[in-house]
């Protein structure tokens, strides 16, 4: 239990990457269209984010520097500013989508249009950011997000053909949808699993919790439990959609369709748990993205940041938080579809991803920061391979998006 509580920071960080509002639908859609053929992408993504979150957590514990500190220190003010702008746009647009997701979950429970719930959701999110203690926030939303395990349980209750799922995962096929659509979905899933705000949030959370070198073991278990749990939740979404939708090739693009497999398995109670899970993960992802946007800006400029001190002593940090939430609300009131909002961020992520992960890898080898806790040879090899993969995925994202018209 103590291990699990220590791991909630990792779980909450992973939720924003693996099962936020965009991914709830995108993962289910991938399962409906291609079966389990994208399972390997999640495995690769989990391995990559674990490698980088471990480095970022180690740097935060030993030196007290969070990720955007490193970005500014290593890339200088200009290139870091480019990264800040790209990361801020990605993160705040994702925040908008999550606020919409919270409102959609409430709409699913009440039947009242989500647009009316958007201001309520935004106020609730802001209130938590303004008042709730960081550890409490991380535990409540990290643990509540685990309600999404209901999808894994549903898989057991449904007449699942495990052999068939296994074959789909191993024998890759484009299921008659075309290989460019297959690869677009693969790149989109991969990019969302390594979203830059996950490492901003994880490393800054470590600093908020005052990790020191003595907490390295906890930091590592938080990574090694949290991110695989996030990956498992996303995998169970793909699998349930593959079981329920893939045979008929039905398409899927709303939240109630995502919940359908759980309803088939458990009826009304299943729906209630699924709605609660959607609420928890989107709310958690909104907290993660809101804080990450403000962490990145504050760390770039060197402002006082964090929830440990009173807001008036971190006025610039809390101003950015407030403005980001308001921008999210404004974006949603244009009536843009919150579920599709995150898909377009893929292209801007392409700028932010290499400019975020390269400084982590460089500093993880710098003895001025880490003393003798610098990367070993295998961590460096893994880190370099993933950086290469991230660059390839970033470059491939744009032509694939154009050829397939965003994966159509």
């Amino acid at each position, binding site marked *: 239990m103590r291990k699990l509580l220590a791991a909630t920071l990792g779980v909450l960080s992973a939720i924003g990457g693996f099962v936020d509002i965009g991914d709830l639908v995108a993962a289910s859609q991938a399962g409906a269209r291609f079966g389990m053929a994208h399972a390997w992408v999640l495995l690769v993504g989990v391995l990559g984010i674990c490698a980088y979150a471990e480095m970022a957590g180690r740097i935060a514990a030993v*030196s*007290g*520097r969070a990720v955007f*500190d490193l970005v*500014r*220190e290593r890339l*200088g*003010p*200009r290139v*870091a*500013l480019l990264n800040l702008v790209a990361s801020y746009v990605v993160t705040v647009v994702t925040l908008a989508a999550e606020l919409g997701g919270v409102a959609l979950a409430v709409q699913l429970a009440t039947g009242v249009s989500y647009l009316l719930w958007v201001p309520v959701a935004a106020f609730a999110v802001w209130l938590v950011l*303004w*008042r*709730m*203690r*960081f550890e409490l926030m991380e535990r409540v939303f990290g643990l509540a997000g685990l309600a999404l395990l209901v999808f894994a349980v549903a898989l057991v209750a449904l007449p699942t053909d495990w052999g068939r799922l296994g074959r789909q995962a191993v024998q890759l096929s484009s299921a008659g949808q075309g290989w460019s659509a297959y690869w677009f979905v693969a790149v989109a899933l991969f990019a969302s699993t390594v979203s830059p705000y996950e490492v901003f949030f994880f490393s800054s959370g470590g600093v908020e919790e005052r990790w020191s070198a003595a907490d390295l073991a906890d930091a590592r278990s938080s990574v090694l439990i949290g991110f695989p749990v996030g990956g498992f939740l996303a995998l169970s979404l793909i699998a349930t959609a593959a079981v329920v939708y893939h045979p008929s090739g039905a398409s899927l693009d709303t939240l109630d369709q995502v919940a359908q497999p759980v309803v088939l398995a458990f009826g009304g109670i299943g729906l209630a748990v699924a709605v609660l899970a959607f609420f928890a993960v989107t709310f958690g992802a909104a907290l993660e993205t809101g804080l990450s946007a403000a962490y990145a800006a504050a760390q770039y*400029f*060197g*402002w*006082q*940041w964090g*929830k*440990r*001190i*009173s*807001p*008036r002593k971190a*006025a*610039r940090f*809390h*101003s950015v938080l*407030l403005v980001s939430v308001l921008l999210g609300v404004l974006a949603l009131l244009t009536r843009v579809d919150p579920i599709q909002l995150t898909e377009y961020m893929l292209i801007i992520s392409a700028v932010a991803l290499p400019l975020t992960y390269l400084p982590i890898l460089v500093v993880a080898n710098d003895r*001025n*920061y880490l003393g003798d806790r610098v990367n070993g040879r295998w961590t460096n090899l893994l880190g370099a391979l993933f950086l290469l993969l991230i660059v390839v995925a970033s470059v491939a994202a744009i032509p694939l998006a154009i050829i397939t018209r965003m994966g159509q």
Partner: protein
Amino acid sequence: MRVQLTKRLLDRQIIDADGRLVGRVDDIEFAIDDEGYPYLDCLLTGQRVLGERVGGWIGRALVAIADRFVDDPPVPPVRISVSLIDRMDSAVRLRVRAGDLPASPLEVWLRRHLIDRIPGAHRASG
């Protein structure tokens, strides 16, 4: 103290004696001693001096934004004498408290006009 200025000093976080974040080393200032040798005199921090260092239209935009949210622009940067530096590791650590240094004008402006007006601004959530 011998340091590689661009690698070890510029863009580093400045932290006070209590662990408060003071700002970043946005620029540095040299002075000339009696024998005509230049020496490092001050660390400079603030959006305006950062904008001037970045240069171009982006730098000018940073300066314009910095000037918009202060009471009487243009504000000079916060100057921190090198003699106040205690040690340098992954950050520049000062031997004084942030309260003894001039406050950031942007922080003061936002505190007065926005954050202090919201209930609960005085209590840390921890």
